[in-house]
C-alpha cells in the first residue's frame, strides 16, 4: 500500500467530511449539485462515526442533535431529511436508521468517556435526549416479530425490498446494536433498561441462530416476510429465505455483536470474499451481479471494501487488509471516493438493460451524464457519484484502525 497516498486520502477525507456538514448539522450524502443533496440517516450515522474517529467531536455532536431533533412522532427516523430536518422521504420504512442513530449516539457517548470516565462523559447530552432515545427504541421494538424475535423492515442498506423486505441481516444487526447501546447509556444514567436489555438479547440470539446457516457456514441476507405481524410467518405470502451472498452478512461483527475472530464471522467473510471480490477491477461488490439492480453498472463499492479491510485488520491478516485498503487508496481520484466503480462495458450493459425494460428513471439521467463526463471514463472506468461522503467516513475509520495497529 502506498502509505503517503493513504495519508493524503485520510487528510482529504477529514476535509470532505467537515465541508459537507450543513450549518444546521446534517451531513449531506453527496455535495449539493450532485446526486444526493439530502440527509439520509444511514449515511449521516456513518459520517458521525467517521467524525468521532477523526476527533471532530463538535461536528459529531451537532450531527446527532440534527437527527435527534428530526425524529418522527412514533419514534421513527425517516429514509431522508431536507437540510431543515423535515422528513423528505420517498421510500417505505428503513428501520436500520433507528438502530444506526442509537449506535452512533452510543459511540459518541463512549468517545466522550462513557461509563468509565464519568467526569468527561457527555451525560447531559444523553439525558437531554433521553425521551428521544426511549421513543427510538420503542419504535424498533414495535417492529419486532414475537414469533422469531427479529425486527421487520421493508428496505435496508440497499433500499431494495425485493431482497430486503422481511427480517434482514443489516437492519437487525443495526437495530440490535442500537438497542444495546441505548442499554449502556441508560445504565450509565441509572435508568431501568432491563426490558430493553432482555429484548436486545433476544434479537441478538435470533440473529445468531435464525440468520445463520450452519451448512453454508455463513450468515444469510434475509428471511423474506411481507407483514411484520404475520402469525404464523410460515403462511406469509413472501415466506422464503434470501441465501445469496451479500457484503452486509458481515454486519454482526461490524456492529460488535460478535468479535471478528469468531469462526462464524471468519467463514462468512470467506464466502463474501470468494464471491464478491471483483476479479476484473478489484474491490468488493455489494451483492451478486444477477440481482441486476446495478445503477451505473455492476462494480465494487468503496465503503464495503473498507468494512472488510477493518475485519482483516482486526484479525491481524495484514496482507489481506492491505489488499482491501490499498485498493481504496489506489482507486481514489484526486483524493475523492465514489459510491462505486464500474467498467464502461458493465455501465453500458446496465443502461441497455434498464432502457429496454423501460425502468430507467429521469433522476438517473444526471448520474449518467456525470459518469460519462468524469476523467476516469477515459481510463475505461465508470465512477458513480463522486464524492460520496459515506466512503470517506468509512475510510477514516479504517485508516485509523490500520495505523493504530500497523503504523
Amino acid at each position, binding site marked *: 500500500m502506498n502509505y503517503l497516498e493513504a495519508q493524503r486520502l485520510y487528510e482529504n477525507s477529514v476535509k470532505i467530511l467537515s465541508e459537507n456538514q450543513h450549518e444546521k448539522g446534517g451531513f449531506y450524502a453527496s455535495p449539493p449539485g450532485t446526486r444526493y443533496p*439530502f440527509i439520509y440517516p444511514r449515511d449521516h450515522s456513518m459520517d458521525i462515526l467517521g467524525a468521532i474517529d477523526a476527533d471532530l467531536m463538535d461536528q459529531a455532536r451537532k450531527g446527532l442533535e440534527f437527527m435527534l431533533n428530526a425524529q*418522527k*412522532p*412514533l419514534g421513527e427516523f*425517516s429514509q431522508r431529511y*431536507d437540510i*431543515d430536518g*423535515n*422528513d*423528505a*422521504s*420517498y421510500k417505505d420504512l428503513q428501520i436500520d436508521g433507528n438502530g444506526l442513530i442509537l449506535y452512533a449516539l452510543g459511540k459518541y457517548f463512549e468517545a466522550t468517556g462513557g461509563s468509565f470516565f464519568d467526569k468527561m462523559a457527555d451525560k447531559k447530552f444523553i439525558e437531554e435526549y433521553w425521551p428521544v432515545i426511549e421513543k427510538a427504541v420503542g419504535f424498533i421494538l414495535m417492529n419486532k416479530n414475537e414469533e422469531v424475535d427479529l425486527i421487520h423492515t421493508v428496505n435496508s442498506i440497499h433500499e431494495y425490498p425485493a431482497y430486503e423486505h422481511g427480517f434482514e441481516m443489516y437492519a437487525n444487526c443495526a437495530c440490535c446494536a442500537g438497542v444495546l447501546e441505548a442499554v449502556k447509556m441508560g445504565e450509565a444514567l441509572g435508568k431501568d433498561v432491563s426490558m430493553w436489555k432482555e429484548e436486545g438479547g433476544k434479537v441478538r440470539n435470533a440473529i445468531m441462530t435464525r440468520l445463520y446457516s450452519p451448512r453454508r457456514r455463513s450468515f444469510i441476507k434475509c428471511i423474506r416476510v411481507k407483514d411484520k405481524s404475520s402469525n404464523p410467518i410460515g403462511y406469509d*405470502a413472501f415466506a422464503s429465505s434470501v441465501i445469496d451472498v451479500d457484503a452486509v452478512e458481515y454486519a454482526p461483527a461490524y456492529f460488535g455483536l460478535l468479535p471478528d475472530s469468531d469462526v462464524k464471522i471468519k467463514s462468512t467473510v470467506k464466502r463474501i470474499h470468494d464471491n464478491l471480490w471483483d476479479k476484473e477491477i478489484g474491490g468488493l461488490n455489494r451483492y451478486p451481479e444477477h440481482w441486476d439492480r446495478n445503477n451505473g453498472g455492476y462494480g465494487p463499492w468503496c465503503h464495503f471494501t473498507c468494512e472488510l479491510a477493518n475485519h482483516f485488520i482486526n484479525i491481524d491478516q495484514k496482507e489481506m487488509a492491505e489488499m482491501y485498503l490499498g485498493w481504496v487508496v489506489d482507486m481514489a481520484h484526486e483524493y475523492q471516493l465514489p459510491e462505486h466503480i464500474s467498467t464502461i462495458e458493465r455501465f453500458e450493459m446496465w443502461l441497455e438493460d434498464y432502457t429496454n425494460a423501460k425502468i430507467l*428513471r*429521469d*433522476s438517473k439521467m444526471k448520474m449518467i451524464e456525470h459518469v460519462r463526463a468524469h476523467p476516469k471514463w477515459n481510463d475505461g472506468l465508470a465512477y458513480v457519484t463522486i464524492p460520496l461522503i459515506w466512503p470517506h467516513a468509512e475510510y477514516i475509520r479504517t485508516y485509523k484502525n490500520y495505523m493504530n495497529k500497523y503504523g
Partner: protein
Amino acid sequence: MIRLENMLPKAFLVGIIEMVDLVGPEKTYHWIEAIGNRLAEIEGPGFEGARDDNINYLPVCPFGNDLVEFIEIYGERPEEYQQLIDFVKDQKEQSEEGWNYPALSSVVGILHHIYSKRRAELAGAKLLNLGSKSPVSETKEYNEQAIARSGISKDEVSGYLDKSFCVSKIEYPEEE
C-alpha cells in the same frame, strides 16, 4: 379481485360511495378531512416524494394501483366520486383562498392533499397543490389560483405532470 388480505383499501373506496349516499358530499368531505388530518398528526411534519428545491412531486401515484383496480372490478367510475369532486371544486371557486384546495383529478386526491397539507403545516410551511394527473384517465387538472400564487408557470407545472402524478409548491412563511 377481492381477497380478505387486500380488502381494506377497497373497503375505504366503497366507504366513500356509501358515505356520499348516506350523508352527502359535504359531510363525506369532512369525514375524509378528519382521516387525513389524524394520519398526518401521527406521522408528523414532512414532505413525501421527490423534490426540486421547493417543488414537491410524486413520480408514482401512491393510491393509483388501488384506485385503478377498484374501478376495474366495480365496472365504472362511481358517480358519487364525481359528486365529491364537484363539491370540492365548488368550494374552491367560492373561497377567497382557492389556492388552499387540491387540484383534483381523482377522489383519492382529497385524502392525499389534506394529509400532505397538514404535514407541511406541521413543518411550518404551506403546500400549494399546483396540479395533478388522474391515474385512471391521465387527465391533468390544475389549481389556477395556486399556480398564480406560486409564481410558477402553468407550462412548468404541466412539464412536471408529464413525469409525475401530483405537483405542489412548498411555501415557507417568508415567501408569503
